[in-house]
């Protein structure tokens, strides 16, 4: 187990160092998030619909699209110079390769969300205050679910035609349950309802994460092996 985690961290660190040195992808994703939030603002009639009514949906649709950008990139960058072959030939277990990629993607999406959330609060004038900590919990649970399935699928789509288009087509149906639950929980939290009302959603989110983390860990090797 220690060995697995150490290997996973090596893979994750490689991706993160690569990301940190260039910063192009993460910056693009952050700018994209800001732009989507801006565009959404024009998609509603401010005199008819209160911002807080739409806010949870806007937040989650934005983050889902931003996550998709990061996920598309995760294995795409391994295609250059045949890096994927090197990675597969390295003495790494497939499980740690998946976990490493998962952690790198989580950090990537986490950074984008960390910038996106304050922007969201600013743009839509959401009363966050006391709900911040639970909201971060919802973000963490839902993001884990999204990235868990997304990392598995992004390893598959790079070997298909139209990879960039294939990922959202395959992934979006899988993101509906975490999205529905996250939106429901976020709406309760932003309306200053007690946390106990959202507890059922959070439990179901956690169940989703556990099931798909297990399934993806087991299935990942079938997506990369020759």
């Amino acid at each position: 187990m220690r060995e697995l985690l150490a290997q996973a961290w090596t893979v994750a660190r490689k991706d993160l160092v690569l990301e940190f040195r260039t910063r192009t992808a993460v910056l693009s994703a952050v700018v994209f998030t800001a732009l989507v939030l801006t565009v959404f603002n024009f998609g509603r009639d401010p005199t008819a619909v209160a911002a807080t009514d739409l806010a949870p949906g806007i937040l989650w649709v934005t983050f889902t699209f931003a996550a998709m950008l990061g996920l598309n990139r995760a294995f795409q960058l391994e295609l250059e110079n045949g890096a994927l072959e090197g990675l597969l030939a390295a003495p790494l277990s497939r499980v740690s390769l998946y976990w490493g990629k998962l952690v790198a993607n989580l950090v990537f999406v986490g950074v984008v969300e960390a910038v996106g959330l304050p922007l969201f609060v600013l743009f839509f004038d959401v009363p966050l205050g006391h709900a911040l900590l639970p909201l971060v919990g919802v973000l963490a649970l839902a993001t884990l679910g999204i990235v868990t399935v997304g990392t598995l699928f992004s390893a598959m789509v790079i070997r298909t035609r139209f990879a960039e288009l294939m990922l959202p087509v395959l992934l979006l149906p899988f993101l509906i349950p975490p999205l529905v639950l996250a939106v429901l929980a976020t709406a309760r939290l932003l309306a200053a309802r007690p946390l106990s009302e959202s507890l059922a959603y959070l439990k179901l989110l956690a169940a989703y994460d556990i099931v798909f983390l297990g399934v993806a860990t087991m299935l990942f090797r079938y997506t990369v092996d020759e």
Partner: protein
Amino acid sequence: MNLVRKGRVITLLGLGLLAGVYVRALAFTPVERLQGPAQKIYYLHVPAAIWTEMAIVLVGLAGIFYLFLQDPRLDRFAEASAEVGTVFATIVLTTGPLWGKPIWGTWWTWDARLTSTLLLFFLYVGYLLLRSAITDPALRGRYAAVLGICGMCLVPFIHLSVYLFRTLHPQPIILKPGPPSLPASMLITWLCSVGAFTVLYVGLVTQRYGLSLQREAQGGIGG
């Protein structure tokens, strides 16, 4: 007799049975008091919905066994089952609005059941698109199996999460805890219809399986 022929015969038998079910449903089964004749679509809608979900579970199970056994027959079956499931999902999504218009006054609403069927439909379409985007048969089988297994695991979550929204859809009246709450004559008609759909599923899958075999024999990539 080759498989395609055999499948065609079974499909025709299924269609014949379905016609028989409708003769019984229209002429010999009582009209529902509140919904009137619109309720007759129930005998088409619910069995198709049951087989839509059964088909995705079978795709997932075939996927699990395919990953272990690497047997191309399982992959062919999964593909056939997914295509038939897509057709059944289309039947559900067509008959639903036909019933919804007179009863609810709207063709479509973002009701839990409608949404979950729509998601299943998208899942099937994604599965078939993934298959069509890969040319190498071994890789296609493996990736399709992975997606099929994930899809099977997704079904309960789709159900649970969309059910948290309030639903307008009639509650289950047969597949629920406790005895079915409909008259015996309706129940028998419905059970006959489930039987007819089972025969249809078997027939269509057999045909599709046979087609895959023929295509492979001709060296096509369609699988």
